[in-house]
């Protein structure tokens, strides 16, 4: 059976399963379904959180980034997992105890202010929409390859599917659909990794294979890779730092704080039965995430090795363009891989020197999808990877759209602007908000600011600088008041946005950047993607300063802070689907 038919079948089956689960979850009374069981089980919730969390960026882009950055790609690995430590200890248990529907709602109550709630909604929307753009890029890449069309067409197809899936009703039963999506994506990620690790090192566990010797030789895989890439003039794989140590530090910290401040992840912890379950759930989520994240470095290094060895089987030897493998031809069709025969010798030269390099475009986002083909794995494995990439993108897009829609309909409309609208009107408003978010993200997906993980990284900067500090101070300080929190959030958001826009262009349209995006113009050499932590520090500082010179919060708010710190008497869990309807 040819690859495309097989891909259609596997993707079709997985989609049928998601729709089936959504339908089944809806068929029984949702109320009975969740409340009779007393909230979602911590392990189940952990798995759903992992699927919600691991996006197209984690699945498709991350290993590609590590493959080309080597050690420099570690920021994504540490940043996107270390944030769960902060989430588990600093936020999740307390927000569960507080026990309402949305993150802006907490901020509105804690800072006794509708204005604070609106600022939180704005921060949430900016962060989530930026994040959805990254998903759209991932969906576009996956569909363009799997339908063998150009990126733009792939993006439109992907947008339509996300639209139907999220807006028309796939939202119902989201927790159980996400569990199925986790299973699909983790199989799709680890099976090719196991195959490739076996091929290269004889060790079936990719995490160990990466530290092993190559089959039939005494050379360690990483040493061989270091040797190959340095011979071609690239930086050594295991030590190549991206930019400065300060930047690496800031980038990792921004990603960690941002992870803990992303609203679509936080709301997942509102669904478990008790406070202790929120902690357990954070543990399980991290376990399920680390299964994929610890495999990614192996996927990355092995993909890079295979890529170079395909093009140049032995040092000095070059592959003829005529003999290029079929995956090469297919990716050329998408426009994400480009070859230009600069010296007209019909051979492929791939080196670090831009004047001689003939692989003029190797989009990093194609690495995970191309990897099993480069390693010549069976077609069903390749088809499975496509299904996994789509599961990752869809589950995250659904979670994000839910967060955006509930912020607009529940916090902005019902909570502030139009308190008298009916539940039905609120639901319709949230559907319109979702459709709007998809359209905006799709448009920006056509003009992608950076590769998918880069776009997503900006969302983290925004969550880190605005939402995380407000939540943390709200729990750990009784003295931070309304004035301080609002001033802090605005400062964090504005500083980060200005810094990003001045270097990257307003709304990422590069031609509108008024300070070129180059290291010389960066503050302490910190790139825009890594700037969230500076925004967060400014947020903390401004919030404390302003609170110190204004009136302390009222007694009932201080009592509320005391109350959420204690794990006993937590109210009923939130049903995540129903949070839309409230």
């Amino acid at each position: 059976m040819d690859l495309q038919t097989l891909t259609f079948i596997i993707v079709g089956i997985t989609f049928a399963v998601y729709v089936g689960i959504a339908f089944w979850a809806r068929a029984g009374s949702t109320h009975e379904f969740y409340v009779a069981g007393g909230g979602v089980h911590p392990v189940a919730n952990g798995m759903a959180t992992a699927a919600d969390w691991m996006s197209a960026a984690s699945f498709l882009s991350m290993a590609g980034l590590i493959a080309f950055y080597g050690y420099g790609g570690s920021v994504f690995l540490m940043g996107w997992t270390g944030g769960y430590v902060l989430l588990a200890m600093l936020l999740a248990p307390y927000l569960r105890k507080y026990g309402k529907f949305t993150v802006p709602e907490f901020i509105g109550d804690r800072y006794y202010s509708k204005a604070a709630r609106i600022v939180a909604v704005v921060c949430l929307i900016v962060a989530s929409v930026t994040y959805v753009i990254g998903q759209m890029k991932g969906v576009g890449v996956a569909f363009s390859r799997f339908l063998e069309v150009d990126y733009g067409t792939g993006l439109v197809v992907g947008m339509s599917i996300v639209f139907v899936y999220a807006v028309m009703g796939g939202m119902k039963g989201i927790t159980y659909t996400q569990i199925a999506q986790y299973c699909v994506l983790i199989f799709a990620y680890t099976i090719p990794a196991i195959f490739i690790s076996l091929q290269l090192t004889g060790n079936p566990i990719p995490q160990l294979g990466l530290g092993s010797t190559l089959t039939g030789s005494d050379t360690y895989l990483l040493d061989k890779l270091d040797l190959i890439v340095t011979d071609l003039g690239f930086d050594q794989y295991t030590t190549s730092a991206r930019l400065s140590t300060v930047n690496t530090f800031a980038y990792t910290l921004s990603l960690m704080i941002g992870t803990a401040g992303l609203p679509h992840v936080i709301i997942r912890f509102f669904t478990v039965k008790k406070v202790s379950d929120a902690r357990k759930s954070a543990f399980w989520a991290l376990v399920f995430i680390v299964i994929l994240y610890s495999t990614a470095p192996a996927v990355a290094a092995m993909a890079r090795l295979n890529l170079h060895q395909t093009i140049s089987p032995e040092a000095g030897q070059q592959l003829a363009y005529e003999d290029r493998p079929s995956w090469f031809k297919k990716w050329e069709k998408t426009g994400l891989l480009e070859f230009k025969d600069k010296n007209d010798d019909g051979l492929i030269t791939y080196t670090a020197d831009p004047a001689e390099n003939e692989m003029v475009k190797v989009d990093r986002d194609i690495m995970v999808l191309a990897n099993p083909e480069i390693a010549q794995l069976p077609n069903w494995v390749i088809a499975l990877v496509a299904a996994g990439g789509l599961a990752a993108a869809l589950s995250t897009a659904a979670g994000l759209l839910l967060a955006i829609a509930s912020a607009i309909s529940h916090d902005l409309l019902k909570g502030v602007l139009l308190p008298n609208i009916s539940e039905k009107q609120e639901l319709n408003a949230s559907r319109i908000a979702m459709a709007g978010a998809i359209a905006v993200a799709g448009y920006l997906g056509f003009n992608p600011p950076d590769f998918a993980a880069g776009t997503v990284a900006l969302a983290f900067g925004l969550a880190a600088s605005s939402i995380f500090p407000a939540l943390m101070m709200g729990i750990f300080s009784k003295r931070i008041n309304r004035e301080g929190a609002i001033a802090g959030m605005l400062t964090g958001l504005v500083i980060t946005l200005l810094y990003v826009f001045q270097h990257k262009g307003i709304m990422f349209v590069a031609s509108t950047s008024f300070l070129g995006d180059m290291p010389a113009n960066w503050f302490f050499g910190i790139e825009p993607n890594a700037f969230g932590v500076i925004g967060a520090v400014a947020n903390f500082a401004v919030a404390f300063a302003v609170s110190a010179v204004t009136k302390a919060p009222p007694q009932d708010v201080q009592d509320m802070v005391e109350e959420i710190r204690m794990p006993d008497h937590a109210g009923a869990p939130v049903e995540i689907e129903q949070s839309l309807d409230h």
Partner: protein
Amino acid sequence: MTASSTNDLDITKNLENRKRAYWRANVKLMLILLCVWFVISYLCGILLVEQLNAIRIGGYKLGFWFAQQGSMYGFVVIVFIYSRRMSALDKQFGLDD
């Protein structure tokens, strides 16, 4: 003052003290674990990576291993310990649900 209201006052005071002690224990545990969190990622994976790279375990340079494997396993252990210890504290202070 009647005997029963003194008693109520004692119980309230007692509960207040218990809650304060619980919160202190929570914050202490949190700070210790955050130190570990910092050491395994920022110290071993970023600041001291070059020095640690001189040591090897199998094909891995140690600093590289911390950055791309070890820190993540450490995070899992930290969250596990936090969850276990906090459940024990909840019980110890009679604040479990």
